[in-house]
């Protein structure tokens, strides 16, 4: 039986099919991972990657199909069965209990490590130390998970999975929340680990796929669209296979059409949830027809700036002006009325109401306007017509506009938000990490829309951590560090090295060319 094998030399799935109400998430998928291999699984958001991995983990039951380990068939009814067979998974969303320590999380998952009647964390701690030394993954066993940064939590996830004795690793978009340095470290570590165990790696970043994997499988709409050796194909080829068309991320090339200043932030001071000044006198200006990129390591005040601009957090002092109207102190409703568009960082909880339909989410900011309401009554027909039109225009893929928006994939949720915000014809748009975790097709789509908006004379503030995105799209790039704008430089003069130094807080000699 596969359970007792020391190593997993082959994992094979055959004809896996999984249906959800209204969607065929996996459609007769077959793939194989052999010894020493790292298989990259790529595909657009909603292609079925996570669903397939959850089936491998015993979390979902397949409707059809079989799984083989070392040639013998296995059936996983619960995640426990998958662990027993040696499969470990780092999930797309962290599977850590935040109000418990790292050691408690490890003990939770392993009966041998926790004792029977008395919780004995000693064994869990020892195991964590052993794993973290072996793989060079620094982890503090007694730290509470909620105290850890995203990068540290990612490391804990990996250590936890290894502590459970994984002999086969599945990593579902492990890099989507990491900083560039953290990503490089993780990729280097995983390359070393392929010698010990085969792995499946999911990512939207083809550079990572090229660096780590030797095999690649592309899923499109639940089917295997392509399988082959990574080395035989360029990133551009893979991107084309993934989306079904050639992908060209657009650049900000059209002539400088910037007009007068539309959005002006002056000396803004805003407190964070913890009470200190997250924004400590930040000032910036965005002109009409301009994309101002805001670079910075996340946690330097971006969230508070975005909240303040949307009216979700009150400013202690300073001013925010949109086309001459003072916004600070106004309610979100009034700020929306003044022509502010907003693409929030957390699309699931701030961007949409997940249980509302796509159609309802698309009218969320206008349901009281005469277009969608007749007195106290909603004009549902108008809302549906609006939704049908936007669905077409923004290529929102959903079974119908009556589907709950929360059940869509990340890319499609972002399109719903984008459609709602852009269709209102805003004067200024604040976009916070708009492509985080999205596939290349969705990224291309969103970049194109943002550039169109610029050409229409909208002032766009693009908050991002992705340097390529910032350099491709922006007219000017401002760097935020510890709640202040350290410098603002024209995008043509920006290089990765220069931005990297500024993001680390190194002030330049000649200063900013604001």
């Amino acid at each position, binding site marked *: 039986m596969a359970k007792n094998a020391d190593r997993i030399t082959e994992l094979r799935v055959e004809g896996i099919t999984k249906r959800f109400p209204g969607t065929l998430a996996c459609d007769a998928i077959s793939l194989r991972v052999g010894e020493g291999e790292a298989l990259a699984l790529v595909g657009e958001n909603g292609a079925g990657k996570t669903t397939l991995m959850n089936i491998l983990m015993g979390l979902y039951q397949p409707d059809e199909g079989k799984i083989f380990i070392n040639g013998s068939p296995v059936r996983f009814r619960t*995640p426990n069965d998958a662990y027993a067979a040696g499969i470990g998974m780092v999930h797309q969303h962290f*599977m850590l209990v935040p109000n418990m320590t790292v050691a408690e999380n490890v003990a939770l998952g392993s009966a041998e490590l926790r004792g029977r*009647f008395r919780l004995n964390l000693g064994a869990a701690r020892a195991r964590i130390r052993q794993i973290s030394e072996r793989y060079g993954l620094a982890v503090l066993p007694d730290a509470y998970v909620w105290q850890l940064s995203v990068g540290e939590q990612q490391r804990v996830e990996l250590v936890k999975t290894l502590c459970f004795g994984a002999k086969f690793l599945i990593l579902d978009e492990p890099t989507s929340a990491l900083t560039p340095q953290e990503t490089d470290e993780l990729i280097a570590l995983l390359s070393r680990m392929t010698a010990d165990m085969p792995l499946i790696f999911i990512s939207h970043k083809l550079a990572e796929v090229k660096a780590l994997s030797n095999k690649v499988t592309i899923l499109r709409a639940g089917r295997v669209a392509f399988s082959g050796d990574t080395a035989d194909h360029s990133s551009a080829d893979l991107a084309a296979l993934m989306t079904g068309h050639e992908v060209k991320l657009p650049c900000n090339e059209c002539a400088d059409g910037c007009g007068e200043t539309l959005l002006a932030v002056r000396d803004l001071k805003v407190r964070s949830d913890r009470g200190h000044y997250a924004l400590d006198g930040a000032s910036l200006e965005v002109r009409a027809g301009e994309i101002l990129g805001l670079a910075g390591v996340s946690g330097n005040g971006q969230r508070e700036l975005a909240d303040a601009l949307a009216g979700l957090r009150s400013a202690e002092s300073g001013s925010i002006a949109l086309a001459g109207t003072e916004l600070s102190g106004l309610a979100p409703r009034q700020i929306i009325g003044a022509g502010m568009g907003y693409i929030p960082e957390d699309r699931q909880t701030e961007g949409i109401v997940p249980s509302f339909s796509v159609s309802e989410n698309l009218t969320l900011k206008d349901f009281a306007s005469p277009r969608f309401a007749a007195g106290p009554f909603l004009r549902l027909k108008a809302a549906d017509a609006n939704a049908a039109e936007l669905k077409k225009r923004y290529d929102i893929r959903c079974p119908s506009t009556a589907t709950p928006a929360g059940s869509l994939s990340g890319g499609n949720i972002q399109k719903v938000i984008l459609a709602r915000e852009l269709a209102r014809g805003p004067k200024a748009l604040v976009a916070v990490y708009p492509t985080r975790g999205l596939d290349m097709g969705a990224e291309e789509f969103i970049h194109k829309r943002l550039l169109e908006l610029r050409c229409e004379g909208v002032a766009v503030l693009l908050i991002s951590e992705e340097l390529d995105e910032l350099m491709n799209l922006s007219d000017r790039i401002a760097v935020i560090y510890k709640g202040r704008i350290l410098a603002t430089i024209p995008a043509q003069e920006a290089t990765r090295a220069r931005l990297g130094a500024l993001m680390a807080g190194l002030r330049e000699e000649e200063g900013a060319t604001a």
Partner: protein
Amino acid sequence: MNLLLVLQNILAIGVPFSVALLLAALGEMFNQRAGVFNLGCEGIMAMGAFLGFLPSFLLKGGALAPWAPAIGIACAALAGVLLGLLFGLVTVSFRAPQGIAGIGLQMLGWGTAGTLSRHFVGGVTGIPGIDAWPIPGLSKIPFLGPILFSMTPFGYFGFLMVPISWYVLFKTPWGLKVRAVGTHPRAADTMGTNVARTRYQALMLGGAMAGLAGAYLSLAQAKMFADDIVAGRGFIAVALVYFGRWHPLYILGGSLLFSIAQSFQLAIQVLGIDFPYEFAVMLPYVLVILVLAFAKNSRLRGPAELGKPYNREKRV
């Protein structure tokens, strides 16, 4: 009048008042830590009170009479387990909304206890019940003795349950699972914890403790049964769990504060102090509301998934 003696009396009456609240609230704490919010606590207590009382009533004067309280306690705990199981079936397996299901359970327990009592008992009848067991020696300690060491066995059990609950919750593998399924059930599930089973277990434990709390009321506190005997204590217990930030020690503090305020209120009336007694009666409840209102920013946050059914195949 000796002020110290008044204080001693207020405490000696107030501390036993807290036992029913303490038992029920500790049980409810396990439910809520596991993510299930059981408003039906009141109903389970009513059933516990009735079943705790019934054997003493039926066996009165018979040969088995000395055993009646023990039989009653066992019946009350068992009924609590079964009602906890029922609540689990409705909210964990069928994923019914917990608030409504809880109100249903409350009415079921309360109504059943009342109906059975009218059928078997008729009017309000006293029973011998359970008397205090003063601890030799310790109960003679001045001031503290009569307060802490002259309680009924229920009282000692209730206070002993505070460290035991703490130990179970924070120092045993089962407690770890309970905390995990209430905070991040999906994570617990991916790590091999059976979410439904853990929630059922917590509900059965919570039910047993609510049943015992009810039995305490009829067997030790009132020594009789009337169908309004619980008088909202089940709901107060639920509030005390929030008040106590899901921690046994704070729950103990809350139960004591509430009960002593109540006994203080009685003292005001009995001693004929010139103070509108309506306000005194309000005092404990106002205290609970005030603390609940101001405790919301506490760093000790409750179980994040409290009240939400878990479905493995549902999208996150």
